[in-house]
C-alpha cells in the first residue's frame, strides 16, 4: 500500500513556480547587502526596511498562493514541484536544484514567511537607533531565503545548502553588533557547534547514499528515498543496522541545529543577537529545522526503532533539564532561550514516539507563542534601553499594556492552559508519550509544570509588582510604536487560536492539522487509524486533567512567591544545601566542561602540533641543512687551507716578485726609450761578437 501510494505521489507532482518564494527574499538580501548602505544613506533607513519587509511579505503571498493551489488538489496528489536547474551530476550522484511543496513544507513555509514578515515589520521599530539597518534587513532576508531553501529543497543536498545557510545567517545576526566581543564569540560558538552537527549530518547523508547505491537506487531526492529506503532493511555496518546508523548521524545533525543535548549550548548564548533575531531564528524557525528534517524523513526514522528511542530520551531529557535551568535565570531572554530548548525537547519527544504530526503541531503553536514572547521581551528591552535583567524591571503592566497583554496570552499558551494553543499541542504530545512509555510522560509532565512556573515568574517579575526600573529609563517608559505592537497582537492571536487547527477527536474536534499532514506521515497515519478503534478516551481525559493541574500548580507557585510573597524564593534555593539551585543557576557547568575539555583540548592539540611542525618537522629539515652546512664548512676549510693554500702560495710568490719588479716601471716614456735603445745596442754588439 505504501509502495503504490508513494509512486502515485511521485508521479502526481504538479509543476509550479515555487522559485519565486525563495527568489524574492534572495533579491532583497542581494540588494540590501550590496547596495543597502548607499540606499540607506540616500533614502534613509525606512527604504531598506521597507524593501526587506516587502520582499518578505511578497514571499508570504507566494506561499499562500502555492498553499491554495496545493489545497485545491486531491489529498493524495498534493505535491508541487519546481526544478530550477541541474546542479551536480557525477557518476551515481545526480542532484538538481529543485524545490518541492507538500503539506509539510506548506505549514513550514507559512510559519516562516508569515512570522518572518511580522518580525520584519517589528524590526523596523526595534532597530530604530541602529546605523546598519541595511545589513540587518539584508541578513534577515538572506535568512528567509536559506530557511525556505532548507524547507523546500527537494533533495538532501539542497536541504543541506539551506541547513548551513541558516547557520551562516544565524552567525551574522548573533554577531550583528560585532564591536562587542561577547556577541561575536557567541556567534562563533553557534556556528561551530552547528558544524559539529553538520559533520554528522554529512556522514549520515554519505552513508545513506552509498548504501542505497549498493542496492542500485542511489538517490538523495526525498520522494524517491521514500520508496528506496526499504532496501536498507538487513544492511549492517560496524555491527549496526545501516538505517539505525544513518538516522543516528542525521539526528546528531538535528541536535546541533535544534539545540538538543549535547549540542544545545549555543542557543542560550545566541541571545546576544538583536531580539527580533532571537524570535525569528532562535525560537520560531531555524531551531525547528531538526524536527522538520526528521519528519521529512519519517519513513526512514520509522525503520530504526533504536534511533527513535534515543530521540525520545534525548528530547525528554532536554525538555526537563532546560526547564530546570530556566527556573533560576535572571535575564529575561535567557529564560526564554532555555524555554525554547525545553520546548524543542518536547517536539523531539513527539517525533521520537512516532507522533510526527503532533511534533509539527507543537512546532506551529510554539512558533506563535514563543515568537510573541520574544518580541514582547524585545519590546520591554527596547523600552528600558537594553536592560534585560528581570530584577530591574517590574510593574511594567501599566506602562506597556499591549505588550503585557500579548505576553500574558503567550505565557498562558506555553503553560498549557486549556483553550490556548499550547494546551492542544502539548497534551497531544504527552498523551502519545504516555502510550509509548509512561516514564517519558512523567518527565514531560514535570517539565510542563516547571514551564508554567518559570513563565509566570517572568510575567510577574516583569510586569507585576512595583517598578524597579531606575534612573533615566524610568522617565521614558512608554508603550512601543505600532510597528512593534501590531506583530505582537497578531502573534498573540495565533498563540490563542492556533490550537483550534488541531483539536483532538477526544475533545470533539476533527484534528484538521493531522489530516492535512496525513499524506506526508502516511505510516503514522496508517498506524493511528488502525489503533483509532480501540483507544481509550477516558485515559486521554485523565492525562489532560493531570497536565492542566500541573500547569496550574506551577502558575500558583509563581503567584505565591512573586505576587503574594507568602513563599520565599530563597527557601526553595536553599533546598539540598543550595546545590540544586547553584547547578541550575550555573547551567550545570556544561559550558565550563565543554570549554575546558573539548575547546581547550583542541586548542592544546593544535598548539602542540604547530610546535612540532615548527621544531620537529621543520627542525629535521633545518637540521639536515645544518648537517650539510657543517660538512661543507669542513670541506671548505680543507679546500681553503690545503688545496687553495697551494694555489695561493704560488700566487704569493708571483706577487712578491711582481712587487719587486714594478719598481722598474717609472712611467716616464724617456726612461723606457733609453732602455730600449740601450737594449738594441746591446743586442747588436752581442751579434757582432
Amino acid at each position, binding site marked *: 500500500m505504501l509502495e503504490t501510494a508513494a509512486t502515485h505521489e511521485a508521479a502526481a507532482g504538479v509543476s509550479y513556480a515555487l522559485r519565486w518564494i525563495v527568489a524574492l527574499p534572495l533579491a532583497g538580501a542581494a540588494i540590501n*547587502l*550590496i547596495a543597502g*548602505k548607499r540606499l540607506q544613506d540616500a533614502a534613509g533607513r525606512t527604504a531598506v526596511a521597507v524593501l526587506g519587509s516587502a520582499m518578505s511579505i511578497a514571499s508570504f503571498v507566494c506561499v499562500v498562493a502555492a498553499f491554495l493551489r496545493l489545497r485545491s488538489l486531491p489529498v493524495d496528489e498534493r505535491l508541487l514541484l519546481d526544478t530550477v*536547474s*541541474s*546542479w*551536480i*551530476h*557525477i*557518476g*551515481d*550522484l545526480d542532484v538538481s*536544484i529543485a524545490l518541492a511543496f507538500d503539506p509539510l513544507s506548506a505549514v513550514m513555509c507559512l510559519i516562516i514567511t508569515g512570522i518572518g514578515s511580522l518580525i520584519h515589520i517589528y524590526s523596523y521599530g526595534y532597530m530604530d537607533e541602529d546605523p546598519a539597518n541595511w545589513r540587518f534587513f539584508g541578513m534577515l532576508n538572506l535568512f528567509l531565503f536559506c530557511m525556505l531553501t532548507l524547507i523546500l529543497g527537494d533533495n538532501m*543536498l539542497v536541504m*543541506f*545548502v539551506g*541547513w*548551513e*545557510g541558516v547557520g*551562516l545567517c544565524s*552567525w551574522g545576526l548573533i*554577531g550583528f553588533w*560585532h*564591536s*562587542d*566581543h561577547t556577541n*561575536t*564569540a557567541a*556567534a*562563533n560558538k553557534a*556556528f*561551530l557547534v552547528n*558544524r*559539529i552537527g*553538520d*559533520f554528522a549530518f*554529512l*556522514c549520515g547523508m*554519505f*552513508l545513506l*547514499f*552509498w548504501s542505497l*547505491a549498493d542496492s542500485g537506487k542511489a538517490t538523495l531526492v526525498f520522494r524517491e528515498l521514500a520508496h528506496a529506503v526499504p532496501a536498507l532493511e538487513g544492511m549492517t*555496518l560496524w555491527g549496526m543496522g545501516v538505517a539505525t546508523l544513518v538516522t543516528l548521524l542525521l539526528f546528531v545533525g538535528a541536535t546541533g541545529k535544534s539545540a538538543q543535548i549535547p549540542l544545545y549550548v549555543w542557543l542560550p548564548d545566541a541571545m546576544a543577537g538583536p531580539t527580533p533575531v532571537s524570535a525569528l531564528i532562535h525560537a520560531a524557525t531555524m531551531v525547528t529545522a531538526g524536527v522538520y528534517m526528521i519528519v521529512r524523513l519519517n519513513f526512514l526514522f520509522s525503520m530504526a526503532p533504536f534511533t527513535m528511542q534515543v530521540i525520545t530520551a534525548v528530547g525528554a531529557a532536554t525538555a526537563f533539564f532546560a526547564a530546570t535551568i530556566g527556573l533560576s535565570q535572571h535575564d529575561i531572554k535567557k529564560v526564554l532561550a532555555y524555554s525554547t530548548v525545553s520546548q524543542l525537547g518536547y517536539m523531539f519527544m513527539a517525533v521520537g514516539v512516532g507522533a510526527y504530526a503532533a511534533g509539527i503541531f507543537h512546532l506551529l503553536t510554539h512558533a506563535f507563542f514563543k515568537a510573541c514572547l520574544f518580541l514582547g521581551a524585545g519590546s520591554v528591552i527596547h523600552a528600558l534601553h537594553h536592560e534585560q535583567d528581570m530584577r530591574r524591571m517590574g510593574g511594567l503592566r501599566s506602562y506597556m499594556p499591549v505588550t503585557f497583554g500579548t505576553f500574558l496570552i503567550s505565557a498562558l499558551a506555553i503553560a498549557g492552559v486549556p483553550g490556548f494553543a499550547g494546551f492542544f499541542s502539548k497534551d497531544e504530545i504527552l498523551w502519545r508519550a504516555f502510550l509509548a512509555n509512561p516514564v517519558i510522560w512523567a518527565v514531560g509532565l514535570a517539565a510542563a509544570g516547571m514551564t508554567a512556573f518559570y513563565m509566570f515568574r517572568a510575567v510577574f517579575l516583569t510586569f507585576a509588582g512595583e517598578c524597579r526600573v531606575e534612573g533615566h529609563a524610568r522617565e521614558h517608559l512608554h508603550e512601543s510604536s505600532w510597528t512593534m505592537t501590531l506583530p505582537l497582537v497578531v502573534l498573540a492571536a495565533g498563540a490563542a487560536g492556533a490550537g483550534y487547527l488541531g483539536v483532538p477527536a477526544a475533545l470533539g474536534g476533527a484534528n484538521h492539522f493531522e489530516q492535512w499532514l496525513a499524506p506526508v506521515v502516511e505510516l503514522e497515519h496508517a498506524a493511528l487509524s488502525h489503533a483509532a478503534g480501540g483507544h481509550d478516551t477516558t485515559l486521554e481525559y485523565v492525562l489532560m486533567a493531570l497536565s492542566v493541574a500541573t500547569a496550574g500548580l506551577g502558575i500558583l507557585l509563581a503567584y505565591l512567591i512573586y505576587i503574594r510573597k507568602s513563599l520565599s524564593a530563597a527557601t526553595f534555593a536553599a533546598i539540598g544545601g543550595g546545590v540544586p539551585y547553584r547547578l541550575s543557576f550555573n547551567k550545570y557547568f556544561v559550558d565550563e566542561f565543554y570549554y575546558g575539555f573539548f575547546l581547550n583540548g*583542541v*586548542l592544546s*592539540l*593544535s*598548539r602542540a*602540533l*604547530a*610546535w612540532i*611542525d615548527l621544531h620537529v*618537522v*621543520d627542525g*629535521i*629539515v633545518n637540521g639536515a*641543512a645544518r648537517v650539510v652546512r657543517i660538512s661543507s664548512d669542513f670541506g671548505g676549510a680543507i679546500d681553503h687551507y690545503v688545496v687553495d693554500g697551494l694555489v695561493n702560495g704560488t700566487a704569493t710568490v708571483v706577487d712578491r716578485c711582481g712587487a719587486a719588479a714594478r719598481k722598474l716601471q717609472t712611467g716616464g716614456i724617456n726612461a723606457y726609450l733609453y732602455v730600449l735603445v740601450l737594449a738594441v745596442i746591446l743586442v747588436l754588439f752581442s751579434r757582432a761578437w
Partner: protein
Amino acid sequence: MENVLSYMTFVPLAGMLAVMVMPRDKHEVIRWTALAFTLVPLLLGIWLYGDFDGSITGMQYVERHTWIETYNIQYIMGIDGLSVTMVLLTALLCPICILASWNIEKGVKGYFMLFLLLETGMMGVFCALDFFLFYIFWEVMLLPMYFLIGIWGGPRREYAAIKFFLYTLVGSVLMLIAMLALYFHGEPRTFDMLVLMERAPTYARSFQAWAWLALFVGFAIKIPAFPFHTWLPDAHVEAPTAISVILAGVLLKMGTYGILRICYPIFPVATQQFAFWCLAVLGTWNIVYGALCAMAQQDMKKLVAYSSISHMGYVMLGMATLTSQGINGAVLQMFNHGTVTAMLFLIVGVVYDRAHHRDINGFGGLASVMPVYTGLMTVAFFAALGLPGLSAFISEVLVLLGAWQYNQALTIVAASAVVLTAGYMLWMLQRVWLGPVNEKYANMPDLSARELVTLLPLAVIVLVLGIHPHAVLDLIDPTLLALNRTVADAVVVSAQLLH
C-alpha cells in the same frame, strides 16, 4: 587557432623581452605592458573555454614538432580535461597578480620580467606533453620564483627562497631520475608522454614502484604533502602578496597535476599499490594536521598557508579514491582552491599594505572601518570553510562522498576537518575584523578600485561555481573517467611476452 597553447605559453615570454628593452625608470609603462601581455593569455583562455570540447577524452590543440632529433626529443603541446582547468586558472590569476603587484616600487623592471617568465613556465608545465619539455618548463618556473621571493620578499626572504629552491630542486632531481629511467626503458627511446602511457602495461611491477615513488616525492614536495610541507609557510610569509597568490593558486597544483598527468596513466599498477598509503592516508593527515596547525598561528599569512596544506589534502584524498565523485572533486578542488586561496592571500595583502604587519591579534574591528573589504572577505572565508552554495563546498563534498565509498574511517577523520576549518577561519575573522575598532587603524581606507578589480572576479567565480559547478565539471568529467578506468583496469603485461 591550432597553436593557441604555444601562444598562451610564449606571449608572456615576448612580454618579458618587451619589458627588457624598456628604460628601467618608466614604471607605469612597464606595469601596463606586463598587464597587457598577461591579458592576452587570459583572452585566449576565455576563447579556449568556449572552444574546448569537454566530451573528448583525448588531447586537444595538439602541436607536435621535432626539437632535438638526435635524442628524439619533441616539442609537444596539448591539453585535455585535466590540464584545461589548470591552464585557465593560470591565465586567470596572472593578470590579477600583476594588478596586485602594482605598488611594487623596488626593481620594477626586473620584477615584471621575472613574473612574465614565471607565467611562461607555469603555462608550459600544464601544456607540455613531452616529458623533457615538461621538465624544462618545470625548471624555468623555479628560477624566477626564487628571485621573486629572494629579492622582493620580507625580512627572512633569503632563507625562505633558498629553502624553497632547494626543496623543489630535490624534487626535480628525483623527477629527472624517473624521467631518464623511463626514457631508457623502451624502444624507440622517447619522452613523449602519450607513447609512454601506451607502454604502461609493459612496465614491470618493481620498476613502476620505484619510479612512482621517486615521482611522488618530487610532486609531494610541491603539493606540499606532510612531511615535505615546511617550505610553504616560510615561502608564503616572506613572498610578496602576488607571489603568494601564484604560489598557492598555481604552483601547489603542479604537484597534484603531475601525479594525475604522469604517475596515474604511466604507472597505473603502482598507483593502485600506493594510492591508499601515499595519497589517501597522507591526504587525510594533511587535512587534519594542516587545519590544526593553522589554528595555532598568529600570522595571517601563515594561517592561510597551513589552510592550503589542509585543503590540498582533499585533492590527494579525492584522487586516491578512484571513484568518479572523488577524482572529479579532486580536480574541481584544485581549481576552487586556486581561486579561494588567491582571494585569501589578496585579502591579507590588503591589510598588510596598509598596516605593514600581519599579526592576527594586532587588528580588530576592521569590519566597521572597511565594509566593502569585509564583504568580500566574508565570501572568501566562508568559501574556504566550505559553506554550501559557494564553490569549495561542491568539491569538498564530492571528495568526501567519493572517499566514503573508498574508506569510511578515513572519510570520517577527513570530514571532521569541516569543524576545525570553521574554527580557525571564524576565529581569525573574529580577531581581525570583528570586535572593538583598533584606534590605530580606525582610518584605514577601504578597497581601492585596483584592489576591487583583483578580488571581485574571483568572488564572482566562487559564487557561480557554487551554483553551477558543471561550468568546470563538464570539462573534466570524461577525461577523468577515462583516467579512472585506465588505472582501475591496469595490469602488468609481462615484459618478456612483448619481446
